[in-house]
């Protein structure tokens, strides 16, 4: 029980459960899943289906955030991927053939790879802050997508391509299948290879990772490439669902939703430990919320308000945990010492006393940091 209540997933899971329960009350048929023409239908299936693009991007974002980064450009990549695929389709000799769809999808993914490599280059080689580095592509990207579509909404008619947005496999919507497969791949790739561990090491303590010989640069690069690829797949789904490329609106603000999903899922923006499960829960919360707003009959535009409220509630609920983490990390020096700070013999004293037990925990109990008054920082407020 103790373990459960301390799990970072507790509050997100409870929030999701509450949302689902609310839906059940409003709409008793909410949980019903029926099979029609061999396909699954029902509100829950819709939630999963509609959550898929955001979830995909959030998975990529989780890895980027774990490396102490952030990728603002994924929304633009969504637009570019859709634009490239549709453009490739309409200019193919036979726009309805499966071959044309394969070429279109491959081209889109190839370009996304380059875009991801570009972000990774700026971050890991040039050492530009991730938020700024990806802001460049975020700003220019949608313009590039418009350039590709020449400002038009390109409609396509290709069954193979359309399958990504409206097809089924074994009765399960294609989006759910694709997103599930990618989620599974990532989970296996990060947990069955050493990628996850090395990624977390880089995110938690980059200097220690460097001294241990971890190739931080290539790992960071890899996660940006993956984030762009995931965004491209999401972009293909979104475009396939409407069988068109809308460079202007496709994936608008999806990067923000993805970041929210990651944060709601309990992965800290500060990097390090990440939880793919949490991200899945986060993405589901956001989508269930949107669905709920529809179900209840509130104008769909107001979803953002509820999103904000849920985010605020989740943050406040998680706040004690944040506080505990901060209190543990902070030294008994004046509180906000992001870097530099006092030349710290205090640490030496704390760790250096004879027969001193647990030095990591000591600062939390050290004599009152009387300086908190001057800095007026949250430390005082947090205690």
């Amino acid at each position, binding site marked *: 029980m103790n373990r459960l209540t301390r799990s970072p997933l507790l509050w997100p899971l409870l929030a999701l459960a509450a949302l689902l329960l609310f839906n059940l009350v409003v709409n008793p048929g909410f949980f019903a899943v029926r099979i029609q023409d061999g396909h699954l239908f029902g509100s829950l299936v819709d939630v999963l289906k509609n959550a898929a693009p955001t979830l995909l991007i959030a998975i990529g974002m989780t890895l980027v955030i774990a490396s102490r980064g*952030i990728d603002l450009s994924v929304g633009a990549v969504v637009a570019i991927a859709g634009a490239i695929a549709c453009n490739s389709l309409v200019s193919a000799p036979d726009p309805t053939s499966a071959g044309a769809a394969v070429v279109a999808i491959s081209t889109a993914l190839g370009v996304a790879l380059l875009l991801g490599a570009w972000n990774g280059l700026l971050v890991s080689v*040039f*050492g*530009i*802050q991730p*938020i*700024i*580095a990806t*802001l*460049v*592509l*975020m*700003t*220019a*990207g*949608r*313009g*590039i997508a*418009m*350039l590709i579509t*020449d*400002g038009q909404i390109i409609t396509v008619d290709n069954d193979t391509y359309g399958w990504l947005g409206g097809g089924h496999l074994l009765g399960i919507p294609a989006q759910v299948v694709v997103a599930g497969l990618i989620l599974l791949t990532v989970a296996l790739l990060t947990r069955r290879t050493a990628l996850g561990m090395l990624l977390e090491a880089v995110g938690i303590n980059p200097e220690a990772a460097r001294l241990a010989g971890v190739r931080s640069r290539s790992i960071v690069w890899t996660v940006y490439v993956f984030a762009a690829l995931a965004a491209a797949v999401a972009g293909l789904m979104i475009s396939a669902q409407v069988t068109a490329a809308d*460079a202007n609106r496709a994936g*608008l603000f999806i990067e*923000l939703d993805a*970041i929210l999903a990651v*944060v709601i899922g309990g992965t800290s*923006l*500060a990097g390090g430990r990440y939880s793919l499960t949490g991200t899945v829960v986060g993405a589901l919360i956001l989508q269930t919320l949107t669905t709920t707003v529809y179900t209840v009959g509130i*104008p769909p*535009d*107001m*979803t*953002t*308000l*509820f*999103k*904000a*409220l849920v*985010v605020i509630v989740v*943050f406040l609920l998680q*706040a004690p945990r*944040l506080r505990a983490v901060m209190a543990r990390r902070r030294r008994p020096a*004046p*509180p*906000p*010492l*992001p*870097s*530099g*700070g*006092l030349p710290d013999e205090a640490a030496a004293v704390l760790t250096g006393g004879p027969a001193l037990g647990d030095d990591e925990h000591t600062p939390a109990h050290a004599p009152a940091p009387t*300086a908190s008054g*001057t*800095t*007026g*920082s*949250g430390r005082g*407020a*947090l205690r």
Partner: protein
Amino acid sequence: MTVSDTRPTAPDPAAPPPAGPGDRRRAWQRWLRSTTTGSRTFSVLVTGVLLVVLFGTGSARYENFGSPQVALNLLVDNAHLVVLAVGMTFVILTGGIDLSSGAVVALSTVIAASLLEAGWPAPVAIAVVLATGALLGWLMGAAVHHLQLQPFIVTLAGMFLARGLCFVISVPSIPIRDPFFQSMAQDVVELPGNTFLTYSVFIALAVLAAAVWVLHRTRFGRTVYAIGGNESSAALMGLAVGRTKVGVYVISGTCSALAGLLFTFYMLSGYSLHAIGMELDAIAAVVIGGTLLTGGAGYVVGSLLGVLVLGTIQALISFDGGLSSWWTRITVGVLLLVFVVVQRLTTRRARPGT
């Protein structure tokens, strides 16, 4: 012998002579000396030169582009963005970011329009709008400072909240017929040479001037820069770090609300889908204006130039019938890239010891 006795009491002979006629020349020399490659003044200079080059190109290539009114229209069409960028500059100087500002602009237009529609007098509506902006800013600043949450995520929540509130108030666009707002939208100040400016431009320039004064002539302003330079040092120096950090978000929120009012004058409507992505324009203008996104260095005047550069690019593209509007975004992205890379290189070099 007591210690205090040893402090120099008389004016130090080595101190500079009192101000004289040579003072202005010395100030100029000082400025020149500080304007070395890579310094912030230099970045602003580069942005200024870029602006002149862009405008010159336009004048050379297109008929009528070089007319004074086209230049003044840069201000007329972007007065709201100037105010928004000024508020953003405060936040970015401390090393934070405010993603909510575009949404607060939209919220301001909606609040103003709906209050006026309900028959409230214009001054009251304006006061309510400004107060809402300040309140939202205060809430976000408090969350950033007291809960130690990241500015990015706090203002992201603020953005969703503000956008959501817009929809709560009104989903469709509300037209504005209030005489005061109408006059603000239509009345112009005639200038010599058959040119004009709107009142909004003067408001924006007044905000800019106030911001320059606050940033450079008040302790609050110096603390803003100090926090951006090194927050823990600022705390150790006994500066009011907490109050200042909350303060910059209040300023940004208020500026966003004021920008929303100017935008309302410009559009004469309140609409929840106004100003989507405007926060990105503001951030781009601030960065192009030479302010470091890591904080601590930059000038609001640079942000003004940044806004004008964005405006000129837009004007260039609209004058050229052959170029489509999306070239604006691409050009701005490329400019951002250039500035960010140059910033990176110069800050790397400026760090002593490396």
